[in-house]
Structures are given as structure tokens and as C-alpha cells.
């Protein structure tokens, strides 16, 4: 069985029963950002704290990526197997809009204002057979 590892450290809590996106919040002006960064792009303060941004949000805008991007895009796909994907900004209750891949990939599945939930999903397999995990959003299930 393949091992699952995050594509990049520090983007989300994982593995976890309820993974959360990770960002940073400024100790001075309280603005949140994703991904976490040591300085604040709002006020310039160098005192920020890593915080959980949540796992649910509201879709603020969206599009569909219909063609396979060139490098630096790096998936396991070929032009033949490429599957269009959604991209959107999701408004998190913690006070920041996060850009993410969306699992829906058809316009009739997406609407501004719809509730979304975070999923940590396999993105590609590296040369050692590890599955690289990334964050994505899908239509929220239940409440």
C-alpha cells in the first residue's frame, strides 16, 4: 500500500479526523493569510501566529481549468488523461479567502455563495511511490 504524504508541509493539518487549513494571523492587525507567512502583508508586522483557518467556507468565485497547464503544473496526467478541474476562492469564516482546486469541474455544479468543505486528496504519486496529498474543496455535505 502506498504511503501518503503532504505535497507541501504546513498547508493543512493532516492526517487528522477533521483536517484544517493552516494560515497565519497577524498579532498586531489580526489579518489572516494563507499560506502562513512570518510577516504581515497588511501592516508589515513581523509577529504572526500560525492558526487553523477552518474546513468549511463559502464559494466566492470560481472557474474551470479546461486545458492542461504547462510546467510548472506537475500531475500524473498526460494530455490524454487530463481532466478539467475547478478553481475558486473560498471565503473562510476565519476571515480570509483561499484559492483552491475544486473537485467539481462543470459549471452547473458551481455557484457563487455555495457552502464548501475541505478535502485532503491525492494529487500525484512521486518516484518512491508516495501519494502526494493536496487540499481541495467540494460542495459541503450536511450541515
Amino acid at each position, binding site marked *: 500500500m502506498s504511503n501518503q504524504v503532504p505535497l507541501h508541509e504546513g498547508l493543512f493539518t493532516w492526517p487528522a479526523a477533521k483536517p484544517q487549513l493552516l*494560515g497565519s494571523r497577524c498579532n498586531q492587525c489580526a489579518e489572516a493569510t494563507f499560506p502562513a507567512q512570518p510577516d504581515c502583508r497588511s501592516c508589515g508586522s513581523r509577529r504572526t501566529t500560525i492558526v487553523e483557518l477552518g474546513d468549511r467556507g463559502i464559494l466566492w*468565485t*470560481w*472557474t*474551470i481549468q479546461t486545458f492542461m497547464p*504547462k510546467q510548472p503544473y506537475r500531475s500524473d496526467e498526460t494530455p490524454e488523461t487530463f481532466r478539467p478541474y475547478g*478553481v475558486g476562492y473560498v471565503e473562510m469564516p476565519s476571515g480570509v479567502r483561499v484559492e*483552491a482546486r475544486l473537485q467539481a469541474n462543470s459549471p452547473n455544479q458551481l455557484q457563487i455563495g455555495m457552502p464548501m468543505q475541505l478535502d485532503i486528496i491525492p494529487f500525484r504519486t512521486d518516484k518512491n511511490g508516495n501519494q502526494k496529498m493536496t487540499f481541495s474543496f467540494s460542495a459541503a455535505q450536511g450541515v
Partner: protein
Amino acid sequence: MDVAIIGIGLHRFGRSPNMSGMQQGASAVRAALADAGLSWADMQFAYGGSQDGGNADALVNELGLTGLQFTNIWNGCATGGSSLHAAYSAIKSGEYDVGVVVGFDKHPRGAFNPQPKEWGLDEWYGETGLMLTTQFFALKTQRYMHDHGITEDALIRVSEKAFTNGSLTPTAWRQQALSYEEIANSAMVSDPLRKYMFCSPAEGGAALIICNASKAHQYRSNPLFLKAAAVRTRHYGSFEVFAPSQAMDVADAPTVTASKAAFEQAGIGPENVNVMQLQDTDSGTEIMHMAENGFCEHGEQEKLLRDGATGINGRLPINTDGGCLANGEPVGASGLRQVYEVCVQLRGEGGARQVPNQPKVGYTHVYGAPGISGVNIITT
């Protein structure tokens, strides 16, 4: 110290398979020098930029090793605007009397593929397919349409106008007008933007000869005057390309602040402008830039486009040469192509695409990653 434009030159945008990007830049400089009646040896300074065409200052290998001050400028899609601003400042300061601004490029086919590290981002952002300018413009347009009641009709009409204007412009890359239906039925690239709503990376060169306005009449009887040149970057909260997250409170785009600064410098307002070039990397951005530059209210674009107000004979003639949509975008040259076209219009040399009633005030606007805007105001 006022600043004049006394020479303009263009190396035709599109594809020049037998020429390097740099040769296309040199071609534009030679054309601008000929237009001004000056020689390369007369140039006291140069500012130039290119994304994929090489270092602009290597142009001296083509044009002559005269020892002039030559500074390379690289500022994304706003490279041309930034180069012109630098030249404007050089004249304003009184340090120089005459110089050249040049931009050129030669991009491979297909969408740009920017690298995360060059934009201060981690690799995962590019790897997972979030780092595409086409995506950003679609995302911004989608939200804008939602907020301001813009429909697909407006997006189609922007492209329809662009290709109509391109068909009237001998130097345009795309010279074939497209019907409303052809645009409306073209493939969806990034919802809500379709194939014929996007410009393509291209090739080409553009150059301007700039001089101290008090000496402009020595060179030509109809110099034009660069009344304002402003470049601004993004504020916290403005919705910009290559942003893994956005603040909740949306701030004015850098276009808004650059535009306001330019109008203030020139001492005029949007109502005084007779012909304008607004960055139209896609039809959605032209619509947003109409309002961000102060030419209409947000949401008013739908009716303006339906009424043909932005056509060559309309009240707000926008992108009279077909803009980026019909000319493609060689990044280094694109902003200067806009200035070139406005100068053509102000001189009354637009031929089949000439704006009627002798336009006296022209306006150019570029926007580039990761949130930079350059605005110029030019008058007769």
C-alpha cells in the same frame, strides 16, 4: 519641464519567424527614429524591456555602440508603462533632452507558464495548477459579473469590437472580424471566458522617441505631449493575480490608484479623454478596466457595449487598433503599442480606424502580474 513624444515606431505584432525578439525591437527603434528624423547617435538615453526576447540593452549590438545610458526595465505586463515612466522622469528631471523607450518580445506558442519562485511563491502553487493568468482573469471576471450584473453578452461584444477594429488596422495580428455567433460559440477556456475572448502571447516591438517639450518643435511640427505617466502597485486587499489568498475587504485595484494619479498629474478627468487603450488581455478585463480607470460606473458597461459606445465612432473609443485581443501580447512591447496607437490617433493618421472629430486627449493603461498598473495621458 514638459515631455514630448516626437517619434513612434512599431514592428508588426504577430509572428516574425525569421527575426529574433531583439531584431524586432531594433526594427521598432529604427522606425521611431525615422519618424522623428533622428539617428541612434542622437539618443542620450534608453529604457527598454522584454520578457523572453533577451536583455534590452543588448540592442546596442544592432543599433550601434554609442555609449548611451541604457537601462533595462522588467515589470511584467506593465514593462512598457514602466519604461515610459522612467523616460518621462529622466526628461522631467532635466538630466536629458532626448531618448528612446523600447519594448519587444518573442514568446513561444500557448499560455504563459510563470514560475512560482520568481513571484515569491512556493512550488506547490504552480504544481497543483493554480498559477495561470487565464484562471485569474476568469475568477475576477466571474465575481465582477456577479457583483455588477454583467452578462456574457458584454464579454462577446468586447471581442466583437476588438476583431472589428483589428480588421481595420494594417499592423494588427488578427485582421479578420469575427461575428457575434463565432465568439459566442467558441470553446470555453476558463468559465466565463471563451477562446475568442483571450489574447495570445505573440511577438513584436514598439518604440518611442521622447524629448524635452521645449525642444520638440525643432524635430517636428506636430509633437504630442506626455502629460502624465504613473505606475502603481497593489494595495493590501486588492484582488490580484498569483494570490493564494485574498483579504476579506477588497481594496481598489492598482489601476484605480494609477489612473487617479495620472489624471491628477495631467489636471484633467476621464470626461476629457477622446481615445483610450485599456489593457484587454481578455474581454472581461477590458470591462473591469473601463470602470477602474474612471470611464464609467461599475455595471454600466453592459449598456455602453450594447450601444456601441466603445467602438471607433462611439463616445468612448477603446482599443481602436483591436487591443491585445487582436494584436496579441508580446509582453515587453505591448504597453508601448498602446501608446503608439494613441499617438497615431492623435495625429489623425488612423486611416480606416481613425476616431472622428480630431481627438486631442489620449489615455493608455496596462495591468500586469502580480498587481501593477501603468497609465499615460497624451495630448496634442
